């Protein structure tokens, strides 16, 4: 058997803090990156932060339906994949026109 210290569980707040930090990093990346693919990576990080949060709540929440959170996380993963696929296809389409995927150079439409 494992020693007692290894069996102790991580408290909910710690996982939530992890989720919040991941979400903040993702949001920062999404807002600051110049490259469209980089923005997309930031968004993926945000979605995974959501998954961490959902799973943490699903583990700790006292309710008749705690597994809702895990089901939710599966849907988040799938939708994230769909969004990423469309985004990459659009990035390819833009690259064919402009030879760039840098967002600050994609500026035909503004104001």
């Amino acid at each position, binding site marked *: 058997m494992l020693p007692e210290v290894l069996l102790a569980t991580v408290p909910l707040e710690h996982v939530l803090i992890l989720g919040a930090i991941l979400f903040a990093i993702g949001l920062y990346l999404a807002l600051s990156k110049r490259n469209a693919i980089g923005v997309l990576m930031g968004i993926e990080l*945000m979605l995974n932060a*959501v998954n961490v949060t959902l799973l943490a*709540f699903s583990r700790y929440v006292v309710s008749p339906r705690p597994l809702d*959170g895990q089901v*939710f996380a599966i849907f988040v993963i799938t*939708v994230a994949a769909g*969004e990423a696929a*469309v985004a990459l296809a659009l990035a390819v389409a833009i690259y064919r026109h402009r030879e760039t995927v840098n967002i600050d150079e994609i500026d035909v*439409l503004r104001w």
Partner: protein
Amino acid sequence: MLASLDRFGPELAVMATAGLVLLADLVVPRRHKAWLAGLSVAGLLAAALWLVILVLRGRQASFFDDSMALDNFSIFFIFLFIAVCGTVIIASLDYAPRFGSHQGEFFALMLLATSGMMLLAGARDLVTIFVSLELTSISQFILAGLLRDDKGSEAALKYLLLGAIASAVILYGMAFLFGIAGTTRLVTTNGAPSIASTIAAGDAGIRSALILSMVFLAAGFGFKMAVVPFQMWTPDVYQGAPTPVAAFLSVGSKAAAFAVVLRIFYEGFGPNTFVGNDWKEMFAILAAVSMCVGNVMALRQTNIRRMLGYSSVAQAGNFLVGLAAISALTNGRTSLGASGVVFFLATYAFTNLGAFIAVMAISNRTDSDEIADYAGMGRRAPIPAAVLLFCLLSLTGLPPTAGFIAKVYIFNAAVQADLVWLVIVAVLNTAVSAFYYLGVARQMYLETAEGLPTLVRAPWATQGILVVAAMGVLTFGVYPIPLIEAAQRAVNVFG
């Protein structure tokens, strides 16, 4: 479960039609792609017919274990979405050949986006809301870039990246809502705990987490509703996306977002709970900011689609007035604010579709969206110009149009909810908006066009749709009672 499948019929019909269109596109030769439009409209009609039968048989209920609801609210919006999608498909018959070999995708994606909106109107579970929201959004991202031209791709990429950030923000708020309530059901009918019952219990310990979740949800849905400060994508997408898609987005996407916001905030959070005042104040401020920024930015636009984009931001501010004034009651139980939002959305659907389709009919022949090129359009394209003028009057909120009744209705709600400052802001903004709306009218009727082709012909189907839209705007401007009653019945399900 199977016993409730018929309540899900309209959505299923639209989705199945989308699949059929996609498959039929593979075998239909290019000359006959218009058949696909016929198939799409037939599917929409079947869905509408099915819904009528459901209503006649009184099948309204919460179903699929409370994750969906067929109630007066969802029925109202499903009819609205079917009408909007059908109108846009018929009006775009003239435009569709521009999609080249992607006409089938255009119709299929329109149907998929519509089915997502229909699901959103009835969704009562956070997972269902999220999945239907993404079904709508992803279809719209692709639609915006379907022409694969320079501007369209740019608009689509911007729309997608900002939209994905908004989805992530919504999800984070939903995750906390799940953590607070321990379930993703907004409301339950069998007495099981739900988000609404948890909030109604009013445990002070959950207040801060609840407000965090509320702010995240409002920010994310604020993007979908196109309110300041989440409006950046609106003018770009309205200008860059194909015109029928922009018309569809400006009406359908906005109505779906407001429907789901009403579900979550009015039905879930509730207007009279211990966080009720918090979200009402939040929406009041967002409303004021949206109206001011949208109108000021619209003043300096030279492209009519960009102008309509900023005007839609300002209109979203008007709708939010209704959300802020949700606790004003009439007949003792019907929320004036909420029914005002629903009524306003329906009239706005007619008005904005009319305006966008008129713009499409004109620009399809002149190949320009610059307001300066609308000079003398009153003579060059009498019917589209007249409808555009009428719709712009309605957007401004002048009688005898539906927009006038909607504004009066919603401002009345705001006054009764003691939001006089908001009404003053809104009325001042209406005055500002008259400048740019009527500027287009002046260009069309008072300027003369020299050296420009004299006549701009629009196809009969488009002209017919335009006349129907204008008739709708006029009818509900003169005799709005039936629509108001329908809107009141729709929001009574929350009361």
